[in-house]
């Protein structure tokens, strides 16, 4: 997979959303022509622009295309298959995926490279945990049959 897309580097966070806000509002109002102010404000307002951008920024780190650039395809495939094989309780190991996008959206003191490194560590650690869970399940099943 090609090198990590520079588009992501620090672009999709709260700061960039706020920076883009005036442009989005101006663009919307200009195209509408200014004839119906209420209608324009109903469609083009800060709440909805921020909400849309927020969801987009949230989905970006969970995107398979992004994950494929961060790690290898084999790991992604293993993690996907592993999710369906492990028990419901063991699926809790995947829970951090839901919170990691917040790390990128809210700027904080860490650099983007450092955040990506943390994400990479988690993605590489998770297959080992999943493999261990599957191994334990196989051993337990064999011991049950042996009895």
């Amino acid at each position, binding site marked *: *997979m*090609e090198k990590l897309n520079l588009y992501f580097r620090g672009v999709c966070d709260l700061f960039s959303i706020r920076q883009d806000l005036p442009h989005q509002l101006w663009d*919307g109002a200009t*195209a*509408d022509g200014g004839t119906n102010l209420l209608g324009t404000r*109903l*469609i083009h307002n800060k709440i*909805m622009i921020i909400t*849309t951008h927020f*969801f*987009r920024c949230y*989905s*970006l780190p*969970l*995107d*398979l*295309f*992004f994950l*494929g650039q961060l790690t290898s*395809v084999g790991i992604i495939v293993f993690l996907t298959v592993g999710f369906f094989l492990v028990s419901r309780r063991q699926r809790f190991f995947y829970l951090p995926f839901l919170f990691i996008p917040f790390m990128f959206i809210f700027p904080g003191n860490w650099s983007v490279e450092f955040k990506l490194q943390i994400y990479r560590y988690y993605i590489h650690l998770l297959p080992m945990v999943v493999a261990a869970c599957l191994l334990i399940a196989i051993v337990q099943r064999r011991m049950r049959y042996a009895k």
Partner: protein
Amino acid sequence: MQNKMGNFLTILSLTVLSFFWHYYLLGGVPPLMSREVLFGRIISATFSILVLPLVFILGLRLTQSRVAAFFSVFWLVFMPWHVEQSRLVSPVTAITFSTTLYIAVLLTVQRRLLRFLATVAYIYFIPITYPTLWIFTGPDYFIDIPGFLKNSFLIISSNFLFFENKAFGSGSLKVYGVMLWSTLPLFIFGLSRLMANARLTRIIRLWFLLPFFLAAMNPDYTGMEVFVSTPLFALILGFGTLTLIEEAKRLPSLKFLLLGTYAVLIAYSLMEFTHYYGVHYPVRIIKETQYASRHF
């Protein structure tokens, strides 16, 4: 008898309403560059309308629920990619109709001979309904594995499905994905419900996987081949809506409030999309065409 009459009336009313949605201002939104193009647009719009009763029948067949079938058609009518392609001279609306018809025949007809004949007819008509498919035009080179993987991940990325679809090039809506971003929860609910039915997943997998592989193997990747799966996405959204309605019926008041908020969000995103398509999209097309004619 009452059920059949109810189903027939629902299909009829949806098709009649969609006439307005697909044909109204067909020569103006998006702007026409030449009058010859209008005939092509009428054909695309017609095929897009013909898909709707088939999606309703499929939705009924798969869930036995008129509500799910209705919402499947509803989400297809308002699906950004479907709207975009149905009002342009699109090479994929005809193949989408023939594929949906073929799937409907497979799910409703039991006799093997008829299913075999339907398969032969479908395969025979592929070059006629989609002549610009890259395997017919002859690729200049074959894609390598990294390219194939990159295209595969692009197709199943949330960015392409919900936020940014540029498959049709300069004529794309661009700021919308295949589906509205607010329908993501419905998509997840619907997908899990669909996958639970083992008999159906075989046909459904084919409906998605074949266009998926064709799109991913295209050396000049655009993703247009995946358009054939848009009725399937609509069915998934319909199932998701049914699931949500069923959950809402037996929920305490707080969760009901959350669902009500979500319903408002959906209504808003539909309004926003209609506004963008009717106002901003034509303006963008005109400006881009003027810029291109001046500089190229």
